[in-house]
């Protein structure tokens, strides 16, 4: 069964790649031009504990790409004692891209279809007990919920990152409710089949 354990002390050293990082960085530049390290600091404030595993180089690589694409304009400032010497400002094209992102209503969500089809296949082909598969899956989701909730409870009152973690917790609760519906359905089917 999938275990909830391990991996605490050894995050992959390269960290993870942020999704939609171009749009996020452009949006963070919409108010004022900034250094790369200032953008990183703003991301860290918004993401709290989730920022710890961010890939350190991704912000800088992405800013270089945005510069090349004409979405930001990099200006060199002569400060040799700073971590970086470039200040990035949003261009008109960059601002248009940010506005398009704000208007986009696509909503990435975990699709239940795969798990549903797994249960149907397990029951139809006699590959396994669907109720048992649901139990194991439920515990994996609960382990995730426990981690997200502990992180949320550890946030100081009013922290923006607490709101993000609450979103994770609520989504996982919805998943658990659906898994309960799965358990009820497949329990009744198994009983009828006896």
């Amino acid at each position, binding site marked *: 069964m999938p275990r909830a354990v391990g991996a605490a002390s050894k995050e992959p050293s390269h960290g*993870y*790649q942020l999704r939609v*990082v171009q749009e996020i960085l452009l949006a963070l530049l919409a108010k004022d031009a900034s250094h790369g390290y200032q953008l990183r600091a703003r991301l860290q404030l918004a993401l709290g504990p989730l920022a710890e595993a961010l890939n350190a180089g991704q912000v800088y690589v992405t800013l270089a790409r945005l510069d090349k694409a004409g979405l930001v304009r990099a200006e060199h400032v002569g400060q040799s004692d700073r971590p970086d010497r470039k200040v990035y400002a949003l261009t008109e094209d960059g601002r248009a891209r940010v506005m398009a992102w704000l208007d986009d209503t696509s909503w990435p969500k975990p699709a239940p279809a795969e798990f549903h089809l797994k249960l149907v296949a397990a029951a139809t082909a006699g590959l396994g007990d669907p109720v048992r598969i649901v*139990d194991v899956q439920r515990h994996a989701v609960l382990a*995730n919920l426990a*981690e997200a909730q502990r992180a949320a409870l550890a946030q100081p009152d009013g922290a923006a990152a607490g709101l993000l973690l609450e979103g*994770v917790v609520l989504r996982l609760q919805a998943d658990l409710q659906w898994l309960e519906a799965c358990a009820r359905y497949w329990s009744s089917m198994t009983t009828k089949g006896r």
Partner: protein
Amino acid sequence: MDIGRPLVQTHGLRMDYGHGTGAVHALDAVDLAVAAGETLAIMGPSGCGKSTLLHLLGGLERPSAGEVRLQGERIDHLSERALARLRRDAIGFVFQAFHLMDELTAIENIELPALLAGASPRTARRRATELLDSVGLTDRAAHLPSALSGGQRQRVAIARALSNEPLLVLADEPTGNLDSTATLDVLRLFDDLRATGQTVVIVTHDARIAATADRLISMRDGAFVEETRLTHGSTGRLGALAGLEEG
């Protein structure tokens, strides 16, 4: 956290209601060990036997067969009198419906178990004052339960459960009657109990209160079907769950 030898143990625990063909097996040979300092959540659908198990652990009912041990000593054969003393001195109960005394104020409810156990009024009041503070209700000390919200009543009930510094806290659906804001306050208290090393067993439908525990067990039809440790470090999945990660 200090997880030591089992504080509570059951062996071959059975509970049957009724006789003959109409008999219901509420518990079917349950073996359980809860370590001192551990918090355990037991989940399962209505009628799976989880409340029955909690009642047997707390000496509120006697099993049809099998053993219940607290600190290595069997409690399933104790006299009614000895059981009542054990429940009063060693076990703190938290119920879904709070079960506070309506005619006593918040602080009087909290100090009552200590007074019944023979503590001096001064000692009992001092302890109750500390407990009321720890659940964030110092300014509600003189309120009757009827003047408190559901979440505040449950926090008083949790403080009362801790009045005699129990070996074991047993909680039956502690968030079952609460709205989401009040649930959050109770979640924090249970998270605090885990952090302070209080031994706790919670039976619940509520995933959020279950997720405060060190360990989770699922029950179905009177038996354990799945078990997971929830506090063995990170799953490393938080970034993906938040939708942060590429791919």
